[in-house]
């Protein structure tokens, strides 16, 4: 017999037989579902792409940098554009779960909460990476950049940096789900916590573009940041998911 009273968490105790659903299988299901939803609606991708293209064009006309200046400032511009754009995808991916209370169906299913988080984080990683694959070459063209050396390191900066954005973004977007102004709340929560990662992304990217410094320290910092925040977000997500 099971009993609970007052403030004790109910959802955690009502796990039906579906608790056997494995983390990997549910993560893949959630990811597949999110990719299919986005492929059909293209809500997040269109909004992100439009915003990022605007940033590229506006920055390019606003600054009109020389080749030397462009190499110094592009790291900052690129990552600010991707940070702002990613919030659109993150908000959209959770808004879908609220539209018809589908999230409640997940909550009572007994499926592992971590799977939902990982599915969302990986899905958003793919969306933002796709955006970067389209927009980054435009930065190269508009700012007249050459990436003769360090392309491999730059790829690592993008992979680690993007994960840093989406892992915290997926967590804080879930945290702000039940707030009245969740679209405003996400940047308020996400941007401050992303500043250390953002500085590392910018310094590593600038180091590669200028060739004046090594990106190693920035990459190492990003790797540690990713591990720490992925662990923290995973350990707290179940509480966030079942919070009222």
């Amino acid at each position, binding site marked *: *017999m*099971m*009993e*609970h*009273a*007052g*403030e*004790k*968490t*109910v*959802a*955690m*105790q*009502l*796990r*039906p*037989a*579906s608790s*056997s*659903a*494995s983390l990997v*299988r*549910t993560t893949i*299901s*959630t990811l*597949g*579902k999110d990719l*299919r*939803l986005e492929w*059909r*609606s293209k809500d997040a991708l269109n909004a992100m792409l439009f915003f990022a293209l605007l940033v590229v064009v506006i920055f390019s006309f606003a600054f009109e940098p020389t080749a030397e200046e462009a190499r110094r400032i592009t790291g900052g511009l690129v990552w600010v554009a991707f940070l702002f754009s990613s919030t659109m995808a993150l908000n959209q991916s959770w808004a*879908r779960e609220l*539209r*018809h*209370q*589908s999230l*409640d*169906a*997940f*909550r*009572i*299913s*007994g*499926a592992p909460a971590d799977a939902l988080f990982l599915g969302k984080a990986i899905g958003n990683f793919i969306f933002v990476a796709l955006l970067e694959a389209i927009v980054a070459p435009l930065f190269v063209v508009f700012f007249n950049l050459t990436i003769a050396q360090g392309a491999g390191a730059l790829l690592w900066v993008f992979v680690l940096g993007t994960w840093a954005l989406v892992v915290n973004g997926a967590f804080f977007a879930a945290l702000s789900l039940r707030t009245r102004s969740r679209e405003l709340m996400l940047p308020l929560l996400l941007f401050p916590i992303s500043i250390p990662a953002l500085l590392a992304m910018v310094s590593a990217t600038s180091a590669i573009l200028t060739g004046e410094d090594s990106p190693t320290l920035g990459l190492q910092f990003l790797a540690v940041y990713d591990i720490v925040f992925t662990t923290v977000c995973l350990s707290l997500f179940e509480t966030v998911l079942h919070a*009222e």
Partner: protein
Amino acid sequence: MPLLTLENVSKLFGRFAALRNFSVTADPGRLYGVFGENGAGKSTLLRIIAGLARPTAGTLRFSPAGPRLGYMAHASMLYDELSAMENLRYFASLCGIRDKRRLEGAIASVGLDPSLERRVGDYSQGMRQRLALARAVLHDPELLLLDEPFSNLDPDSAAAISKLMSGWRDAGKTLLVVTHQAAHLQTIADHSWLLRGGELAAQGTGISALSAGAA
């Protein structure tokens, strides 16, 4: 022994009491009608039993512990951009169900065509309602919580859903059915509760709680 026991369950939203000292029991293999005006606390009651809301005070007990729960809310809990089969395949995966025939059977049981490739967003309200019901029973729940299952249904569809509920009850499931359309439960409800202002105003066999509460 009751499958579900609620003892003095209260739920406060700020100063507003959605439920006040609510105490009932529900036996296995019985169908309970839950009636009351808007804001009486019916949906809150189902959300607490489903584990989606925490009671502010009181005790909720299941025996045996952790029964499989099926929950159908006001909202469809479905994704508009997916087809019926894609929706059910996803929710089935959450419960570890991979048998395609079971999904097809669940869709067919509520009178929908499993091969229909239309997106759920293009469905009528009634079709969506029936698919939501199929989702709720997909994992063969022991306790089924249904919030307004007859809304948006034409009379024939509502009668078919009533018949389905009766069959589930006969198969040993416990059903708690919140509805404003008590007539659909007239011949199948074993027991009923009437809520008023978050309190249990009346209860009785069949749908007699309604008339007892009016007296």
